[in-house]
C-alpha cells in the first residue's frame, strides 16, 4: 500500500502521524517542491523578530522520518495528476504511482494586479524561501511598507516593529476587518500607531514606482507614500494550477467531502489547498489556518489508512498576540449573522479599551470574539466544537467568561 503525500506542511505532517498511528505497514512518502525539511509557515514572522532561529524551525528531520517509517523527498514539484493511471508527474518528467494520494501542497500568497509591480522590490511572504529573500532585503533598510491588514500582515508588522524598523501599513478597509468591528479595529490601529507604525486606510495600491532606493506607492485614495521595501500579506490562494486537466473538482480550492475525499477515488486533499465542509452549515469553504490543517490532515490520513473517519467541519478561528495585546476570534461573527436567528452578547462601548462578544444559536455557542480580555481560547473553542448546551448561564458566561467557560467544559467532560 503506497500513500503519496504532496507537500510537507502541517496537513501533510498530520496525515503522516495519523497513518502511522493506525498502521506501521505500507509506504508513506512525502514530496515537497521546497528544499527544506518540514516547517510551519506560522513560525516565519518570528524569524524576523529573532524569537527563533532557522535551525529551530524543523518539525521533523531525517531521523524523524526514519522513526516514522516514512520518506521525504525534497525539491520535487508535482506538475500534473493522471487519475486513470494513478500517477503524478514531476517537473523533471518522472512519474510516480500511488495507491492513495493526499494533495496538501498548501497555498500561495495572493498578489492583486498593481501597475509597475515587476519593476520594484516587492515580496510575498509565505514560505521559508520568501523569508530568506526578505531577510537579505531587510539588511541595511529602515522602513518597510506592508500591504494588508489581516492577521499575518499584523504579525509581520509586529515582528518588524520589534526589530526596530519603521512600519507603514496599507490596508484597503481597516485592520482585522474580518475579525472585529470598527470600534475594535480602531483600538488596534491606535496601538500600532503608539508603537510608531503609520497606517494608510481605505485605499488600494494603484501603482508602484522605483525611485532610487525607495518605492513610491500610489493609493486609490490619492495618497502616496514611499518605503524601501514592500511586503504583501493579503492572504493566500490554494495551489491548484497543476491539477488542471486531471478532472478533479475544484472551486477556489480542491473540493472535498467530510472524509477529505475529492471526486477522484483514492485522492484526498487537506489543509490550505482544500475546500471542505464547514462546521455550521456543511458548505464547502477555505480555511487556511493551522488547526484546520491539523484536523483535515488527520481525517485524510485516517481514511487513507483504511479507518473511516469524518471531519466535524472547519471553524474559522484566529489568535494574535501583538505588542503586549491579545486578540482571539472564533466562529460566527455577530456583524454577519441574522440577528433574528442568533442571540448576541456584546460590549456596547470600548471605553475600557477591550472587547468581548458571544454569539448563540439557540443554546449553543457558535461564535466569540475577545480583545484584551482574559480568556482560555481553547475552552471557548471546546464549547463550540462539543456543542455544549448553555441554557441558563449565557449572561454569566459573558460576564465572567474565564471561570464559566471552564466550569461548563468540566461539567460537559463529566457526561
Amino acid at each position, binding site marked *: 500500500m503506497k500513500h503519496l503525500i504532496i507537500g510537507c506542511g*502541517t496537513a501533510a505532517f*498530520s496525515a503522516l502521524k495519523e497513518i502511522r498511528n493506525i498502521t506501521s505497514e505500507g509506504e508513506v512518502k512525502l514530496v515537497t517542491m521546497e528544499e527544506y525539511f518540514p*516547517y*510551519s*509557515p*506560522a*513560525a516565519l514572522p*518570528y524569524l524576523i523578530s529573532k*524569537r*527563533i532561529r532557522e535551525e*529551530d*524551525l*524543523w*518539525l521533523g528531520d531525517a531521523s524523524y522520518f526514519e522513526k516514522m517509517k516514512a520518506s521525504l523527498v525534497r525539491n520535487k514539484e508535482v506538475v500534473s495528476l493522471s487519475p486513470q493511471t494513478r500517477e503524478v508527474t514531476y517537473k523533471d518528467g518522472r512519474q510516480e504511482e500511488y495507491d492513495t494520494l493526499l494533495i496538501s501542497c498548501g497555498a500561495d500568497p495572493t498578489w492583486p494586479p498593481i501597475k509597475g509591480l515587476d519593476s520594484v522590490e516587492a515580496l510575498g511572504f509565505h514560505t521559508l524561501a520568501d523569508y530568506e529573500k526578505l531577510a537579505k532585503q531587510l539588511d541595511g533598510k529602515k522602513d518597510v511598507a506592508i500591504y494588508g491588514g489581516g492577521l499575518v500582515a499584523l504579525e509581520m508588522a509586529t515582528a518588524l516593529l520589534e526589530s526596530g524598523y519603521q512600519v507603514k501599513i496599507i490596508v484597503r478597509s481597516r485592520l482585522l476587518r474580518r475579525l472585529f468591528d470598527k470600534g475594535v479595529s480602531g483600538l488596534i490601529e491606535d496601538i500600532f500607531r503608539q508603537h510608531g507604525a503609520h497606517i494608510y486606510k481605505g485605499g488600494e495600491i494603484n501603482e508602484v514606482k522605483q525611485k532610487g532606493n525607495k518605492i513610491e506607492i500610489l493609493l486609490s485614495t490619492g495618497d502616496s507614500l514611499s518605503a524601501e521595501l514592500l511586503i504583501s500579506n493579503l492572504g493566500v490562494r490554494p495551489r491548484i494550477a497543476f491539477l488542471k486537466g486531471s478532472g478533479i473538482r475544484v472551486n477556489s480550492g480542491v473540493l472535498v467531502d467530510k472524509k477529505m475525499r475529492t471526486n477522484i477515488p483514492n485522492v484526498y486533499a487537506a489543509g490550505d489547498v482544500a475546500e471542505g465542509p464547514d462546521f455550521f452549515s456543511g458548505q464547502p469553504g477555505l480555511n487556511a489556518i*493551522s*488547526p484546520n490543517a*491539523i484536523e483535515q490532515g488527520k481525517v485524510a490520513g485516517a481514511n487513507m489508512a483504511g479507518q473511516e473517519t469524518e471531519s466535524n467541519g472547519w471553524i474559522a*478561528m484566529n*489568535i*494574535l*498576540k501583538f505588542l*503586549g495585546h*491579545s486578540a*482571539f476570534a472564533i466562529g460566527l461573527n455577530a456583524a454577519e449573522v441574522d440577528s433574528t436567528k442568533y442571540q448576541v452578547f456584546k460590549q456596547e462601548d470600548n471605553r475600557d479599551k477591550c472587547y468581548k462578544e458571544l454569539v448563540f444559536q439557540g443554546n449553543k455557542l457558535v461564535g466569540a470574539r475577545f480583545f484584551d480580555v482574559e480568556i*482560555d*481560547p*481553547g*475552552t471557548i*473553542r*471546546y464549547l463550540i*466544537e*462539543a456543542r455544549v448546551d448553555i441554557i441558563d*448561564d449565557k449572561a*454569566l458566561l459573558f460576564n*465572567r467568561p474565564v*471561570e*464559566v*467557560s*471552564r*466550569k461548563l*467544559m*468540566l461539567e460537559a*467532560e*463529566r457526561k
Partner: protein
Amino acid sequence: MAGLYDVLVKKYNACPPDCRLCEEACAHRDEKVSDAVMKTIHIPELGFNGVISCIQCSSPRCLEICPTGAIVKNEQDGVVRITEERCVGCGMCTMACPYGGIYYDRERTKPLKCDNCNGNPVCVPACPYGVLEFRRNSRVQDYLQAGDLLSPGTRACAGCPAELAMRFALRVLGQDTVLFTAPGCMTVLALGYEDKATVATAVYPCMFTNVASTMTGVYRYYKHVGRDVQLVAFVGDACSADISFQVISGAAERGEKLIYIVYDNEGCMNTGIQRTSTTPLGAWTNTDPVGEEFHGKSQASKDMPMIMLAHNIPYVATATIAFLEDFAQKLTKAMRVRDGMSYIHLLSPCPTGWRAAPDMSIELSRLAVETNYFPLWEAENGQLQLTVEIPNPRPVKEYLKTMGRFAHLTEDDFNKVQELVDSKLNKIRHLALMSSQTATEAKTRSARY
C-alpha cells in the same frame, strides 16, 4: 519507556468557596515565574468551586499545533513541557487546549503550564481539603518494561509461579547479577537447554549443601579483583530450610553480603513430592501418606523467615507474586543492603505437589495472604512490620480446601490449622509492636540529646 505515569488528580467541584491555597502555593513554586498554573474556579452564583490545570494528555493538542515543535511530551514521566528557547509566544497552544491547561503569561509573552513540579507538586500538600492527590504509578510497571533476563517459555510444570517469580525477580535485580541455584525445579530453567543459555546473567549451579558457602567464596574472589557484585541465590525450601540450613546459618552469622531468595513450595517437588521442614501440618506428600495409619504430615512447619530474623541480618522479608509491587519493593530493599545478608522467603504454590488446579497459582498465593496463612512482613535491621494488612481475614479453611493435598482434613484439622495461623500472626504482631516501640524510644532518646 512509556508506562503508566504519575497523575495529579483533582476532585470536581469539591473546593471550599473562595479558597486559593493551591493557587498561592503554585505561584510560589519557582522564583523565576510568579503565575500560578493551578487555577481556582469560584462561581458563587452557580455554587461551583473547583480547580483546573493541565492533565498531561497522551496526545496533547498543544503539542500538535505548536508551529516550532516547542512543546514535547517526556517519555519517562509523561509530562508535557514547553521548550522555552523554541517558543515564539504565538499563543496557538492556548487555542488548541480544550481543558484550560495552558495559559498565556502576558508579561513574559510566553505560555505557561503545569509540569507536576517535576514529580513533587507543591499544590498537593497545600490543600487541606483532600481535593488534590498525586497518584504515583505502581513501579511494577517500570520493572515490566525492563528486559526479560529469562528466555521465553518454561520447562516447569504448567502453572508454576516460581518461574514467574524468577522471571520478575531477574527484571528487578538486573543484568549485573550472579545467580546461584541448587538442584531443584528452578535449576532446570536456569541451566540452559541443550547448548543454549536461558538466563542472561552469570549462573553458578551449586550443590544442595553449599549454596551460601559457595557464594561466600565467590564474593571474596570478586572483592579481591576489585568488584562489588550482586550475588543472588534462587533456591528452594528443601535446600535452604533443610539440606543447606547449616550453611545458610553460617553465612548469615558471618554477615556475608548475599541476597538469598527462597521459593518455598513446601516440599521436595522436583524429586517427586517429598516432605521438607516447611511442609505444613496435615499436608499429603509421598513421604506423608494419607490412609488408615497416617493422616498427612504430623508436624507443623518450621518458620524459616523467623529463624533468619533471629540471625539479626540487615533484611528479612516474606513475599509472594500475588503482591507484585510488594515483592518488587522488597527486592529493591534487599539490593540496597551493603553490610550483610538479605533474605526473602517467597511462598510458591506448586500445582503438581499441592494437587491444585494449574491456573490457580496466583489466586492461591493471594488467598494464602488473605487468610493470614502467609503474612507479608519485612524486618529492616530487626525492626519488623507487616507490609500488607488484611483487615478482614478469611478463614484458613477456604485456602486449605482449594488443594488436593488437604482433601482428607476434618473440621477438627481445620481448627488446628486456624489456631496455628492465629498464633503465628499474633507473634508477628507482637514483634511489630515491639519494633515500633523500640523505634519510638530511640527517637525520644535521640531527641533528648
